[in-house]
């Protein structure tokens, strides 16, 4: 469950091979990704950086199986996602992925507890949904806030609920899209501590988009995007395995 450098592991968690993504067609065609390749091993914590329009969001959408590459292959656990139907990709999200968004994206007027229960309900788990949700909220430090709705919680607390919702299903991959983008630095640090803990203690692989170098510093590896290409892909200085 410790990140190893590429190529040693015969089975990466996921791999992008020459992935391109073009929006629109003809004259209006706008390439968002222009041949991106990388692999992520189980247990890695990867920060994705780059200016807006560099293709990192598109890349995250493809990693999250919400979008399909125009060309190239995306393999998740050796399964070519490009060959899956929409429903199969949904099931893949349901069983292996967790999402954290910049805008939290919690269901309004729905209690923290019910928000966290949601992915379990879609998984069709009948027993102990409630207990698992309580436990997940406890691990993100929201014990006692279970019955508050997002409107009654601070930004930091809302993001914690979102994290609880993402990890309650014990996903293989956690995709975080600027999770601290709407938070002050104190809350941001708390959120990053949480993510680091889940990565370290539970071996959940995390791919996180961020604009801030401070936040990227929590990751063990940083991938820089520019103009639809990977500009650099390096392990953080101080990474013990480097």
């Amino acid at each position, binding site marked *: 469950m410790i990140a190893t450098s590429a190529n040693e592991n015969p089975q990466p968690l996921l791999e992008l091979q020459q992935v391109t993504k073009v929006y629109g067609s003809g004259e209006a065609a706008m390439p968002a990704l222009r041949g991106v390749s990388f692999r992520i091993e189980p247990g890695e914590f990867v920060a994705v950086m780059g200016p807006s329009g560099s293709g990192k969001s598109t890349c995250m959408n493809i990693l999250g199986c919400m979008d399909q590459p125009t060309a190239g292959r995306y393999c998740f656990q050796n399964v070519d996602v490009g060959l899956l139907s929409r*429903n199969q990709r949904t099931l893949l999200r349901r069983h292996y992925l967790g999402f954290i968004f910049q805008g939290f994206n919690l269901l309004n007027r729905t209690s923290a507890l019910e928000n966290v229960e949601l992915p379990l309900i*879609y998984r069709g788990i009948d027993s102990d949904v409630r207990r698992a949700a309580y436990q997940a909220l406890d691990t993100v430090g929201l014990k006692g806030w279970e019955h508050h709705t997002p409107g009654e919680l601070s930004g930091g607390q809302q993001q914690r609920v979102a994290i609880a919702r993402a990890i309650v299903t014990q996903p293989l991959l956690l995709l975080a899209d600027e999770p601290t983008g709407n938070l002050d630095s104190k809350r941001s640090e708390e959120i990053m501590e949480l993510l680091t803990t889940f990565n370290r203690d539970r071996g959940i692989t995390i791919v996180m988009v961020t604009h801030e170098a401070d936040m990227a510093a929590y990751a063990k590896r940083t991938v820089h995007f520019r103009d639809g290409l990977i500009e650099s892909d390096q392990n953080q200085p101080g990474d013990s395995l480097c």
Partner: protein
Amino acid sequence: MLGIALRLALREMRRNIMRSVLTMLGIIIGVAAVIVLVTLGSGATRQVTQQIANLGSNLLMVSVGKRMGPGQSSTAPAFKLADAEALAREVPALAAVAPQASSASTAIFANENWGTTVTGSTEQYFTVNNRQLAEGRIFTGSEARSGAAVCVIGETVRVKLFAGQSPLGAKMRLRKLSCEIVGLLKPKGQSTMGSDQDDIVIVPLRTFQRRIAGNDDVSLIQVSAKDDISTDAVKQELQRLLRIRRHLSADEDDNFNVMDMKEIATMLSGTTQMMTGLLGAVAAVSLLVGGIGIMNIMLVSVTERTREIGIRLAIGALENEILLQFLVEAVVLSSSGGLIGMVLALVSSSLLAAVLQVPLVFNLPVIAIAFVFSATVGIVFGYVPARKAARMDPIEALRHE
């Protein structure tokens, strides 16, 4: 999954209670209208049938003219008293024969006068029509034969002319005839046709013909068959005899009409049933309009909740699960509307039945159909919005503000 969808739908409905009620209004009114109309219609039909049953199922009416259809008849020579006597003599299956002639007339007593219907008949009139006396007596056979100036009056006439007093023995004037009131009928209320059966004056037929009508016509002969004899057989016998007496050749149609109560019942209940059906169909249209209202609100709701749909899709909700969620929501809306409409209909038709004095007949199949139809409306009109929700692109939906 269905249970969860149901719970979500109920919660969504509670959150927008005002909007939900307004959305359901179309369905509520539609279902209520269908049920109320059909319930009252069935009540009216039942009332007609019952009243006719009260008259006696062995009653037949022989009238002049060929029935051409509802309310129409061709003209033909009237019957005479001799026809009635012939029927009584030659058809042994008859229990009673009451030849009748009637006309509108003003009844005058002291300073009071009242426009009523005077009917001339024999003493058998009371048997055939099942009329009982409240007080006094009916006219005797000899009074009838001699054309005595006596009469029996109904309750309405008594109230109008005599207020609180007993009318017996009083002399009442009908046109040129001054007749003594010998009997008062027990009240019978409204007839099937809506006429007041107590607004009558009965005089001996001969008295009527000589002193009021001035001719010897008989316009209607009511006969009652003996108890164990089929009215169909009696009817054929009457027709055969009357054709001979009216000198009709084989190629001529009857110029008279024999109707038994069964036929009258069928005719009348047929009319009310048709009206009920028509009104029910009009009400069903409002169910359709209600369905369109639901579709409208569901489309608005889907747009409003685009972000929620995006979150659900991202988290792992399948297309079908989103479809089900919104479909169930539409069905919950429409069937709740149906349920409320049903309750409303039961309450209001009970009240209306009491006001209109119609028996309360709940037509269970129609109530069930109205409810099922309302639920179906939800499925049909909820499908398009639900499919719109299910087919959303999660990325676009999450970006939606």
